């Protein structure tokens, strides 16, 4: 989407405001989780929203990177930046390998392949207890300090960690914005809109799908690493298809095919699982109802809801 300059500046300003306000509105721990899952949701949005491929297995890369980071820190006390790089690399590499197989098929088969691989890696992580800790997860993960040249900034409190996560998120968001604003963005969308025609005008559709899947794998891996340092443990759940479902959920609720949709989706999902879950254990019921309503009546998600809201309040024809 090629947009006017003014709109973009306003949006970025609002995003920075949200980063500052969020930890005052919800606990820093939850605020961190919102930005971590925003990265994962942005990644799925690149595949689903932009390129039109619904992947039900993003947790594979989220979990693999989290385990990699955890093991690097526990056994080799790897520094923070190395762990972030390693997690992103593992996410991208795994996505490249698995993606190469999955993109050979389309539609239901693609969905089932991503789902199948996710289940396969879940059961491997489940059974390889000596490496991953199996059902109990991989505990004892430290938060190495952020070594910027001589000074090492400690990240042990939840507020300090929030600032770090928000910074990494901003870098990831900028990188994703560059990808989407680059020719790749419009090429991926052309593949979503009409793969046949995209090929006819000269694009090797499979190669670009593979590229989108791999890039998304890297971003998802980065989110996985940040998650592993959140609670000092990589739970088995981080590689289960439940997390894949959650990420799909966030992208849909937020609004697909739009860079800000997944952020709104991640915020809505995490806020629901934080505040409502204390009030009512059966809070996933609300998620289910929200998803059904979005799918039936509001396929543009929150982004469309707010757009409609603004049109209603701004009166007819106020905007082009």
């Amino acid at each position, binding site marked *: 989407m*090629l947009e006017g300059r003014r709109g973009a500046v306003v949006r970025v300003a609002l995003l920075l405001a949200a980063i500052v306000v969020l930890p005052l509105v919800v606990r820093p721990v939850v605020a961190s989780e919102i930005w971590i899952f925003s990265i994962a949701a942005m990644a799925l949005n690149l595949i689903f929203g932009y390129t039109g491929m619904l992947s039900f297995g993003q947790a594979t890369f989220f979990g693999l990177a989290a385990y990699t980071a955890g093991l690097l820190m526990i056994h080799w006390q790897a520094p923070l930046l190395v762990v972030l790089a390693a997690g992103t690399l593992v996410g991208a590499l795994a996505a490249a390998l698995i993606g190469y197989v999955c993109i050979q098929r389309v539609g239901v088969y693609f969905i089932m392949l991503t789902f199948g691989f996710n289940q396969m890696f879940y059961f491997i992580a489940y059974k390889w207890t000596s490496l991953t800790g199996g059902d109990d997860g991989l505990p004892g993960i430290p938060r190495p300090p952020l070594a910027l040249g001589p000074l090492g900034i400690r990240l042990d409190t939840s507020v300090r960690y929030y600032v770090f996560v928000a910074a990494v998120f901003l870098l990831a968001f900028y990188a994703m914005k*560059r*990808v989407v*604003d*680059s*020719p*790749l*963005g*419009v*090429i991926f*969308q*052309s593949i979503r*809109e*009409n793969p*046949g*025609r*995209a*090929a*006819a*005008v*000269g*694009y*090797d*559709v499979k190669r670009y799908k593979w590229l989108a899947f791999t890039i998304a794998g890297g971003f998802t891996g980065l989110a996985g690493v940040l998650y592993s340092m959140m609670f000092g443990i990589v739970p088995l759940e981080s590689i289960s298809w439940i997390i894949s479902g959650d990420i799909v959920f966030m992208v849909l609720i937020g609004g697909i095919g739009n860079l800000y949709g997944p952020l709104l989706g991640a915020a809505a999902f995490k806020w629901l699982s934080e505040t409502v879950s204390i009030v009512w254990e059966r809070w996933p019921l609300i998620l289910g109802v929200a998803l059904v309503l979005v799918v039936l009546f509001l396929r543009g998600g929150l982004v469309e809801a707010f757009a409609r809201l603004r049109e209603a309040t701004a009166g007819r024809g106020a905007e082009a």
Partner: protein
Amino acid sequence: MKDGGILRTEGLTRDFGALRAVNAVGLEVRAGTLHSVIGPNGSGKTTLFNLISGEIPPTGGRVWFEGRDVTGLPSHRLPHLGLARCFQRTNVFPKLSVYENVWVAAFSRRRPGALGFVRRTTEFAEVDAEARRIVDEVGLTHKVAARAETLSHGQQRALEVGLTLASSPRLVLLDEPTQGLAPEATQQMTRLVQSLAGRYTILLIEHKMRIVMSISDRISVMAFGELIAEGTPDEVRENRVVQRAYLGGRR
């Protein structure tokens, strides 16, 4: 190019199970000419196009483009060799703007290399210029920012041709560009096709005889998957075999 033929096919065949849609077609198109392919519905014209453009692999026979054997190459390779096609049924990018539709087609011919994907789309001035030029050429300047799905049928056909030109091809395959157009829009489209004649070699599928006869340099006639006649418009008009094929009655 061996003997001036920019495109040559030899014994090109395609079977769909028992049905032989295209049967041993040997076609030759000379560079710079406007070569039309006509024939009743179901005579295999579109299938022939699909075989040439790599949309579907042939069962038999060969295709040469500029002397190079392109038989069975996947469709995404051909634009880079200089051959682009448009589709009988409109086949554009509905939710992208007209500008973006043409821009993405124009961009595919650039060799961006790895770094090319780092720069923003707005930083490719030459692609932007090319895209705007084509949008103007196909007469959609006033609709440049509109989403393709909001265009009228005629405008979408124009965009279809625009996408084909955006690959800056040397040979353009146009599959019934005037199909389903009102008379006035058909006029416009015909003028557009004629304006291309000088700069591109054109292989055109067209039903409206008045247009074919007036703008074609050479015409090939197909019936039941076979090439039954070829020649200048006058030769084809006089050809008894062609009349019988068109006026009914089997050969």
